[in-house]
């Protein structure tokens, strides 16, 4: 690669049910936040990459053009990248490529989604078609349905319990309650999680992430420009992406997201680190079982031991690897296209030591893990403090 790439500005807007703001206004909040965070002038931005998962939420053929025009970045290059729930990480990958190749010195990567424009049942249908719309949707499959099958297979193979799943929700709500930008800022008990209604057996309400509106943005710069701004740069050291079968039924092991394993290995190798070196991680907890799979598939614990790993509180601050201490998708919310970018924002703040009561002390190396669909595409990125 011609250039090293760093994050020099990062911001997330308020996640939640944002009836007060349009798609493009949400984008502006995150954009203005990242610009102020960096102290950069808007004119220094060379190009933009936008992550939006679904047209069905934005009621527009080219929502990224709407946003880009609204941000006032004409006539700089901009286009949209889509990888379902991993759209944000895919946009980060394209932004990284743009800087690493020398095409632009500074790139804006912005992710946004306004999911509550449609009723919940319609959002469930849009997300359900994120599986195989021809061969799986006719069996009434929803997005929670796919992960419920992953959970059932995991429980049968390793003895993972509904309590283990609920423990992930309790942890993520505990940290989400300390994050003013999170959608649902309240703690929950194990009993409340276990007593909530079934969404897709065995997943219950508190096993599921939220239907959320929101946006997040990062500014990337090459090594020649990275130290010209207000905050110390956070370097992108490793970037891995892998894919898996469209139909969850075709996976060799339904309880393993093989694309997470491969993308993780690729990112670790590129960064020259091992899972033990990671100080703080955000992983894709669209459902509680997904966080347990991520512990295993990224090598934080051996395969099958994700349940006991959360039971031992190993992923709390003070444990062997703090995970989703921003509340995760579970409590912070999951505005699909924004999620991967918001993960990069969280790790940037953690590595700068700006996370307040949720700060992982002395964090130097961070990881983000972002899953598209039920594992069809996964992005893993590794970051290092300057």
């Amino acid at each position: 690669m011609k250039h090293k790439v760093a994050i020099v500005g990062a911001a997330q807007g308020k996640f939640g049910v944002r009836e007060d703001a349009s798609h493009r206004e949400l984008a502006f909040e995150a954009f203005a936040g990242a610009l102020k965070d960096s102290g950069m002038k808007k004119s220094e931005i060379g190009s933009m990459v936008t992550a939006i998962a679904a047209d069905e939420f934005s009621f527009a053929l080219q929502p990224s053009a709407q946003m880009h025009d609204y941000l006032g970045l004409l006539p700089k290059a901009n286009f949209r990248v889509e990888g379902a729930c991993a759209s944000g990480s895919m946009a980060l990958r394209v932004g990284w490529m743009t800087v690493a190749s020398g095409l632009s010195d500074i790139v804006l990567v912005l992710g946004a989604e306004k999911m509550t424009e449609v009723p919940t049942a319609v959002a469930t249908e849009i997300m359900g078609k994120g599986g195989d719309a021809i061969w799986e949707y006719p069996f009434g499959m929803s997005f929670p349905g796919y992960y419920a099958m992953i959970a059932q297979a995991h429980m049968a193979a390793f003895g993972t319990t509904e309590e283990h799943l609920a423990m992930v929700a309790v942890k993520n709500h505990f940290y989400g309650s300390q994050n003013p930008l999170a959608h649902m800022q309240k703690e929950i008990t194990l009993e409340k999680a276990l007593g909530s209604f079934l969404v897709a057996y065995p997943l219950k309400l508190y096993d599921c992430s939220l239907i959320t509106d929101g946006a997040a943005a990062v500014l990337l710069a090459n090594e020649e420009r990275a130290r010209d701004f207000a905050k110390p740069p956070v370097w992108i050291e490793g970037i891995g992406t892998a894919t898996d079968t469209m139909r969850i039924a075709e996976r060799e092991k339904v309880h393993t997201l093989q694309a997470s394993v491969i993308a993780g290995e690729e990112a670790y190798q590129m960064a020259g680190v091992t899972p033990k070196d990671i100080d703080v991680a955000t992983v894709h907890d669209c459902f509680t079982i997904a966080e347990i799979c991520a512990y295993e598939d990224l090598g934080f614990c051996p395969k099958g031991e994700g349940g006991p790993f959360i039971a031992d509180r190993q992923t709390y601050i003070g444990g062997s690897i703090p995970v989703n201490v921003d509340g995760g998708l579970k409590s912070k919310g999951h505005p699909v296209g924004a999620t991967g970018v918001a993960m990069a924002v969280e790790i940037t703040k953690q590595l700068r030591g700006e996370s307040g009561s949720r700060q992982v002390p002395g964090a130097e190396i961070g990881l983000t893990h972002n899953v598209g669909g039920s594992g069809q595409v996964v992005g893993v990125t590794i970051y290092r403090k300057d």
Partner: protein
Amino acid sequence: MPFKDFSLFISDTKIGGPFAEALKSGKIFASKCDRCGRMFFPPRPECPDCLAEDVSYVEAPTRGELLSFTAVFVPPAHYAAPPAKMPFSKVAQTPCPVGVVAVAGDLRIMGWIPGMALKDIKVGSLFDVEAKTLKNGQLTIILSPV
């Protein structure tokens, strides 16, 4: 048979007509590449390994282990019950479980599991896969315990 009777949304595919015809007559078609012998479910009219377009439709094996299952209690709009007409009331739906059976190595078939309570369904147990025509004419696939 129109493929939409099975797929709900898609009018047709290259294999849609024959697949739906077969379901109607109680058979589940897989495809088999005439050149390399690889089998596919869902069936497809070409082989992604050797790019051959010479494929035969063959009946898929019908017995295998249940890989996983669920029941979707909060369904997508297409399957959602209409809202309750009585004030202060809710309409509760008891969804039919759905599972995936591995019928022969890597051939995986999804289907409804009617008439079984969730607590009685066990991953790894043997199921038979059957084509089914519903009363409304819709074509589907069901799984029954052996």
